[in-house]
């Protein structure tokens, strides 16, 4: 699941799940919802993603930044994500399709994940949360 949270100039993205992986995937959904309505994006092509980071929160920032990079160079939007994290290494898959401005009603480009409100932790309800503010 995902949420957006308030930031005066930009926007906060947050993923919540039963596992860290689910929280990361939710965060990616929240990222996509900043750019467009993710339910319009079809899962046609798959991109493999790998990132490394010793700290969970920095790994989340890396995951989000890698998705931003892949979207930019491939001119793609994503709608579905799979994440596996083992020994500080994330391997993920993102499914999506080529950007079509006429169909996708794109709101804004995301420039990067920032370290503002960057966190990856287990909350009091035992759920994993991964979040940060993104610069738009």
């Amino acid at each position, binding site marked *: *699941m*995902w*949420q*957006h*949270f*308030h*930031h*005066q*100039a*930009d*926007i906060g993205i947050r993923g*919540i*799940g039963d596992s860290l992986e*689910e929280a990361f*995937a*939710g965060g990616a*959904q*929240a990222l996509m*919802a*900043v*750019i*467009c*309505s993710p*339910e319009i994006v079809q899962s046609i092509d798959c991109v493999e993603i790998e990132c490394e980071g010793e700290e969970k929160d*920095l790994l989340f*920032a*890396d995951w989000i*930044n890698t998705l*931003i*990079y892949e*979207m*930019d*160079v491939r*001119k793609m939007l994503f709608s579905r994500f799979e994440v596996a994290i083992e020994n500080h290494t994330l391997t993920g898959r993102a499914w999506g399709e080529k*950007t079509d*401005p*006429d169909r996708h*009603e*794109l*709101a*804004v*480009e995301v*420039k*990067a*994940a*920032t*370290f*503002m*409100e*960057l966190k990856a932790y287990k909350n009091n309800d035992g759920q994993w949360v991964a979040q940060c*503010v993104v*610069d*738009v």
Partner: protein
Amino acid sequence: MGRPMRGGCISKSAGAQAPRLRHPVVMYPHANVRNPLGHAIGRLAPPRWCKIMDRKLVKRRGENKWLVERAGKMRVDGVIFGSEQLINEMDDMVVRQVANVASLPGIVTGSFAMPDAHWGYGFCIGGVAAFDPGQGGVVSAGGVGFDISCGVRTLHTGLKTEDFMPLRERLADALFRKIPAGVGSTGKLKLSVSRLDEVLANGAVWAVDNGYGLRDDLRFIESGGRADGADPSQVSDQAKKRQLDEMGTLGSGNHYLEIQKVVEIYDNETAAAFGIDEGDIMVSIHCGSRGLGHQIGTDFLKKMTTSAKQYGLELPERELACAPLNSDVGKSYLGAMNAGINCALSNRQILMHLVREVFDDVAPKANIRLLYDVSHNTCKEEMHTIDGKSKKLFVHRKGATRSWGPGHAELPAEYRNVGQPVLIGGTMGTASYILAGTEQSERLAFGSACHGAGRNMSRTAATKKWHGKEVVGRLAHDGILIRSRSMRGIAEEAPGAYKDVSEVVKATHNAGLAKKIAKLKPLVCIKG
């Protein structure tokens, strides 16, 4: 079905059965929280980082000057410029970020915030700080921002309002067709990595050498259109790959291309030196270094976070990641950042060329000339007088514009007696302003001024409040044509989501940071 959760969400597992949300549900302070179906399910307390200014944090030191007194680990005082109204509306985070920047090694004189300041990442947006390399001074990727050298370029068209009005629709449509704008837009220019390296080394000079504009344009760009110290070899392959087809593109968000009318002149002598008069039609372009700049920011924020310990830097917040100016990482960043500046300068030069082509075609009477080009996300090596001695400093301006006063050696002869044009972008429904740099600005904040209106409402709150079509309709009623592919983008950029630019400009003028010269009203706005 997706389970309604506190704060609103879509369950990941719900897949195609999840309710179709036109606008995702958001949490923001002082507001009812609604689930995806629009039912109120609670009320959230404002987060700790979102408050209006606690006036105990600042002491008034003038009509438009407020002191953040040196305390704790701060090495210098903080100074925030702004009227009482702007200070009251400012977030506490601005004070915290001004104070945090004041604690960085080698900071000189003070940590400053301009009247349009709002909280950013490490540095506030509107933050200005200078560092001395001889005193262990640092450079910060967060202090420059992700959109390196984002800036405004304003053009004369040589047209008066009466020449323009009959061509208004045709020019709006032709510009919309010609200027690549919006998410993922690409330009006609496709570069190889080695050609891109030439762009990164030479900036707008490369663009002019390759047929995008006139040699004379370069005189009206900071540093003659080419930032010194650019080192393309310090820019990652990923950053370059993002830029190969993005030269000559506007981007999205708050970036725009506007046709504007000069509606008011405040200083006839300076306006004459700038060559502007009431009724003149101008064009302003607001954009930056696109994917390349964003990736340089991302790469070095990470590198500086990792290297901070190695350099013995104690950071109050991780977002303040920085490196000593004399260190390998610091030098590498300066080389990459200056390459990013050149990317932005070249990008705006190419866009200006496209504007020239459109006007040549639709309005042959037009004569497109450059008034000036300013950057507002930079760290520049500059000479400043400290305690009577001239010193080389590295001045971060994050969401702040240079404001060189009369007599500055870098200014073109036409402006040397009056100071540089300081170009302040407003919203698509209000106004933009042209100011002039002042001598006083050098003493106040290393020759700096504000850069724009600054948001006062989040994007998500704006989309809940307005619909794009409604905004376009209202602006059309006010005589402003909007051309954009994204109605959601228009709603997010609605004029009401921004601070009152006139109040920001008034405070900047009254503080002495820059002098008000002219007011411009938008007539056509191309949004990404």
